[in-house]
């Protein structure tokens, strides 16, 4: 995993875990790697992983079964989906609208791009 310098590491790890859940790489209610294994995989301080797991536990995405380990919640995917949709609507859409206005891109243009398979080439041309 490549970290960037834009946000704290523990939040980037949380995003990474959200992606794993959203993409069904981790299923609802499944056991997940221990703090130590996760720290090793990501080459980070185990205390950072503890902080991420604690945060995700608080928001309800992860559960800690004492003596056994960490699990994703039964409704982990729907929780993450709800959170990500909210973020998309509140934070990413306004930026998209603002960019569309600046560049003079209309709804019709958007629809056209949505049905074009090779969006990248279309925009370059």
């Amino acid at each position: 995993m490549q970290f960037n310098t834009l946000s704290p590491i523990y939040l980037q790890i949380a995003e990474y875990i959200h992606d794993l859940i959203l993409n069904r790489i981790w299923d609802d209610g499944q056991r997940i790697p221990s703090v130590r294994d996760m720290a090793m995989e990501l080459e980070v301080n185990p205390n950072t992983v503890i902080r991420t797991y604690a945060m995700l536990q608080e928001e309800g995405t992860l559960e800690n079964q004492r003596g056994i380990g960490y699990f994703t919640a039964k409704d982990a995917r729907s929780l993450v989906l709800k959170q990500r949709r909210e973020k998309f609507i509140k934070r990413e859409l306004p930026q998209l609208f603002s960019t569309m206005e600046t560049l003079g891109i209309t709804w019709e243009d958007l629809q056209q791009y949505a049905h074009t398979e090779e969006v990248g080439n279309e925009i370059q041309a």
Partner: protein
Amino acid sequence: MASQEVSVSSEYGIEGDVVVRMTDISFAYQSKKLFSNLDLEIRRGNIYGLLGKNGAGKTTLLKLLSGQLFVQGGSVEVFAQNPQKRTPSLLQEIFYLPEEFPLPKMKATEYLAMLSPFYPRFDHTMFGVYCKDFDVDLNQRLDQMSLGQKKKVLLSFGLASNTALLILDEPTNGLDIPSKRQFRQTVASAMTENRTFIISTHQVRDMENLIDPIIILHDGSVIFNDTVASVSDKYVLNLTTSEPSKEHALYTEKVLGGWMVLSERGEGSEGQPLDLETLFNVVIQTSKGTMGGVR
């Protein structure tokens, strides 16, 4: 450059029992005074990063707390013992990896047989695993190995020794590119809540996400000893294109495309957290060469 002092809340302070306590210590080499009134507390279950400029005394500090040098004033307690007494019960809980070291004319396997009995919880299986991960040939003679190879043997030995305190002085110097990654993975996996690691380094990029809390040694004292989070939760870095006024910026740095400005994090304010290099520069510059500054 800096005009205000940076202060830090302890909401994300360092947790764990105190395992090392240095109180009001002083130390000098002949006439050259190095430390005066230095205080330091180290807590269990953390991977500390010890940072400081060349000659700040990082190695000296590590030798003082492992009983290899003696303080001239003040007191040092490690696991409630005085390291100067070098009792076996304390020494079996400390492993010290020096920056440079000679090794005897023998194979790693012979070295292991000779020294591992001094460490009651030495894990021979894990020693084998670490050496394999680091790609070390145990049948090669230690005195014929390169610095990097020797470091990997001693690093594997230190991690496998399961001592409560592991001191690593510039451990990534001499390591090749793949070994630095292996180093981070191995250290992260060997860490437990009962162990404490102290890693002194100039290679902050090798360790960026590994060491935390950070200890900064400057002008004879410890001017910073806290978690990275305690700073990044309170301060942010932002890029501005106009030169910031010197009265309002806590710290500024000229970069490509403008200035990086450190400011207090307001409610919901955007900005980057501090990387270790910037943290170090901020702390050194705001300390004004006196004690206090960033705390």
